[in-house]
């Protein structure tokens, strides 16, 4: 039985606040474990762990409260009887966090205090509020529900209610790994078993319940329930002792995908575990016609024509299109290239080593005629460079190095998989706008809109137009200097944004250039980040939009080697 009051949402919030104020993962873990062990029933344990680590809904449920941060902020401004544009935005800029701002306003503004009568909601009642929000489709009605919820809460409850509603981490320095440790400590279960149950079920709350009920052994993988993808680290970020412990594959410039298939049921999942089955009917048809025994494959979707892997830019035309026309699938046909197998013959394969899984994948793909990536033994670092060049010649992004003995580390980014990539390029840009940072960068200007020159471009009247927004790649010291120097360049201010005179030149590195008709420049950069702040350059040294266009065209029309020799994958 849960002790009286132990199941209150307020207590949960207080615990979470204490965790956020505590340093060290051991201390944080102990506090949460102690709290969990006071909860006496499965539903409350599920809720508490889910709220702390997953959000309002289980991350595999596909459910969301679906209420935008702007809607929440507008609603809070109205609740507190303050002007959204003048007052709320300024407060959010100062704190760097909407939920923290709302907490403080709810406390400080007399009208907001008067409207509220905290009524010690239970975890179950708060869950019910989330469910109502999820079911409600209309924005007005959602806002009314929010107001009714807040009327019953303290300011701390409101802050965490908003964060839990946003799904994902609570941003208190207490992530999945620590939550798993706390669960295993609270219910005296084996940490590895809790971790495994989390992977299999995809839900921290579910894993906690199994742990509490001593049923971790029953955690079994189910087909058509996606598993978090294993991720790769950039090779630069890790030290590699024995390169020969790794095998190499070419890194396809496509879209990561998990396929679950059994007979004529086929489902596709994207990296964020959303279902994307209907977007790629030709892939679904291909797998249906094979009538496979139950299987889960991890791999990449790529546009493939003329025996050649086509640029990511062409695949992009297919992404996000829910029901592509036959014309579209004809023009940009997509194939799935497998590189890992996670389930086969009613057996999960995560715990098997990569070479083991690879053997199974090879025989499975060859039996059913499914494309799979080629793998290469790594003999030396020099050979890695040769393979890297060949991958680029195929139009691929680079190489993946995978440790032969590694298990499938779902949802984790460690050094078992390494990616070897080359930056797409870099251009010299000027800072046009500075935006207030959020989260731990609250209170500084840490996000920057960068522009390229169009002063001699007949299509534009301006001197500079935006090409991308970057919020990383600089050091703390550089950021401090940027914040100081930009003060001299301020022309105007719109809420959390300063408009700046061209004055600071930044060498901007990016992975790729994409056409984007909705932007002024017509192009966007993929993963733009600071490479260097060029204090030595003047705005007149900045690159032009024409330079960007040239780079794009070069990438698009660069010769790509077809898959006739030195193939990237097998089974065409």
């Amino acid at each position: 039985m849960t002790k009286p009051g132990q199941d209150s949402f307020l207590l949960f919030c207080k615990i979470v606040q204490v965790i956020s104020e505590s340093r060290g993962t051991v201390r944080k873990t102990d506090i949460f474990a102690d709290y969990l062990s006071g909860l006496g029933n499965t539903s409350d344990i599920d809720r508490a762990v889910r709220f702390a680590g997953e959000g309002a809904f289980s991350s595999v449920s596909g459910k969301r409260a679906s209420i935008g941060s702007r809607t929440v902020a507008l609603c809070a401004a109205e609740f507190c009887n303050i002007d959204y544009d003048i007052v709320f935005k300024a407060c959010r800029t100062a704190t760097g966090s909407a939920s923290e701002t709302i907490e403080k306003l709810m406390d400080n503004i007399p009208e907001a205090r008067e409207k509220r009568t905290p009524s010690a909601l239970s975890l179950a009642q708060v869950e019910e509020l989330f469910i109502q929000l999820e079911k409600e489709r209309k924005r007005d009605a959602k806002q009314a529900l929010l107001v009714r919820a807040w009327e019953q809460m303290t300011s701390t409850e409101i802050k965490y209610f908003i964060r839990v509603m946003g799904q994902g981490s609570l941003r208190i320095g207490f992530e999945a790994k620590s939550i798993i440790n706390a669960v295993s400590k609270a219910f005296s279960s084996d940490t590895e078993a809790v971790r495994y149950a989390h992977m299999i079920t995809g839900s921290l709350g579910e894993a906690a319940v199994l742990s509490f009920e001593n049923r971790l052994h029953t955690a079994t993988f189910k087909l058509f329930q996606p598993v978090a993808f294993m991720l790769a680290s950039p090779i630069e970020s890790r030290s590699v002792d024995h390169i020969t412990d790794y095998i190499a594959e070419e890194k396809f410039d496509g879209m990561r995908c998990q396929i679950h298939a059994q007979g004529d049921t086929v489902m596709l999942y994207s990296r964020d575990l959303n279902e994307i089955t209907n977007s790629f009917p030709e892939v679904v048809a291909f797998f249906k016609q094979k009538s496979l025994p139950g299987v889960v494959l991890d791999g990449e979707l790529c546009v493939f024509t003329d025996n050649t892997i086509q640029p990511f830019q062409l695949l992009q035309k297919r992404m996000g299109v829910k029901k592509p026309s036959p014309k579209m699938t004809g023009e940009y046909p997509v194939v799935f290239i497998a590189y890992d197998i996670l389930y086969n013959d009613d057996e999960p394969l995560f715990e098997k080593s990569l070479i083991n899984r690879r053997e199974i994948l090879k025989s499975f793909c060859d039996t059913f005629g499914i494309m799979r990536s080629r793998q290469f033994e790594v003999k030396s670092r020099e050979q890695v460079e040769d393979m890297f060049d060949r991958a680029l010649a195929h139009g691929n992004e680079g190489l993946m190095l995978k440790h032969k003995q590694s298990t499938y580390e779902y949802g984790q980014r460690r050094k078992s998989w390494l990616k070897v990539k080359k930056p797409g390029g870099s251009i010299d840009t000027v800072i046009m706008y500075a935006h207030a940072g959020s989260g731990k960068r609250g209170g500084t200007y840490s996000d920057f809109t960068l522009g390229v020159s169009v002063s001699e471009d007949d299509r534009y009247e301006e001197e500079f137009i935006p090409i991308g927004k970057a919020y990383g790649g600089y050091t703390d010291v550089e950021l401090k200097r940027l914040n100081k120097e930009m003060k001299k360049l301020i022309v105007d201010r719109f809420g959390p944004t300063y408009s700046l005179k061209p004055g600071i030149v930044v060498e901007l590195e990016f992975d790729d250039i994409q056409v984007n008709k909705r932007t002024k420049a017509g192009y966007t950069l993929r993963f733009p980040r600071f490479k260097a702040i060029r204090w030595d350059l003047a705005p007149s040294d900045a690159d032009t939009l024409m330079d960007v266009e040239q780079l794009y065209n070069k990438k698009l029309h660069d010769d790509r080697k077809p898959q006739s020799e030195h193939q990237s994958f097998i089974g065409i």
Partner: protein
Amino acid sequence: MLNYTLERNHGIILPNQNIGLDVSGDVARHVFVSHAHADHLPRDRYIHVYATQATARLMRARGFKGDVTELDFESPLELENARVTLYPAGHILGSAMVGIESDEGHTLYTGDYKTPPSPVTEGFSRPESVDYFITEATFPLPIYKWQPHEELFAEMREFAFKALKEGFTPVFLCYNLGKAQEVMHGLAPLGFTQQIHGAGYELCKIYDELGYDIGKFEPYSRDTVSDNRILITPSSSLDQPMLRNLKRKRVAYVSGWATHESRRTQLTIDKLFPLSDHIDFFELLDLCEALNPKMVYITHTPNPRVVSHYLSEKGIASRPLNMEGFDDD
């Protein structure tokens, strides 16, 4: 309309009265210093100024060499074109607001101020009403509302006591003039000796001599700091060897800016105490209303817009005075 000129990034000049308020040098015949924080002191150390007695002592301790005419609170000084009165500002020891009465009307310049006042100051008082109100607004948003001093002091004592009991040195990061002595006053009832780093020690002596209870204190010493002492030091020492070498410590950051949760990760500290020596947003609005001025001039602020917005809803006209120097607290 008030007749004034701004001295760039520093003080204000009232040309018709030949008065300079917190200016950098000899730019007016009569120069007034509101309090002894660096951004309000003249850069020229050899000029003649008017200030309160405590401010004069603190200024000299911080290196001012000029001539100071010491004024008592609330006893007017008659000048050729104005009558000037200093009011206790409640910000730090000696801090004063400057009231100027002339043919042009009654002007009140706040310097930095706090009401309810800090317990280690001469308190807070003000004229009934003024025509022109020149106010700082370091914390100009409704997210800033201070808890009472006693509440925060109690929390600070609990933090320090618990740390000491568990074998850690409690460290309070705070500005060494004003905030440091306020914190020491709050911690004094615990009875532990407080060590203060660097220049702060000389300033503490002045507080002590003027009769303010800031407990037992001594200069920082590496040899004894871990010996049941509380350490008071500015936040700039966070990445200096003194603190890096102190292994068993619990660090608290004491500032109005501690309102922001982001300061926790930015500074890597254990506890935030939002204790400010500036007026909060709500007190500021109430005060403006009570003084009922023709015009409020807002200085020393990161954002004058929100205050102006609220004042205009109350029917009070306001405008920003552009000056910098709102970062210290």
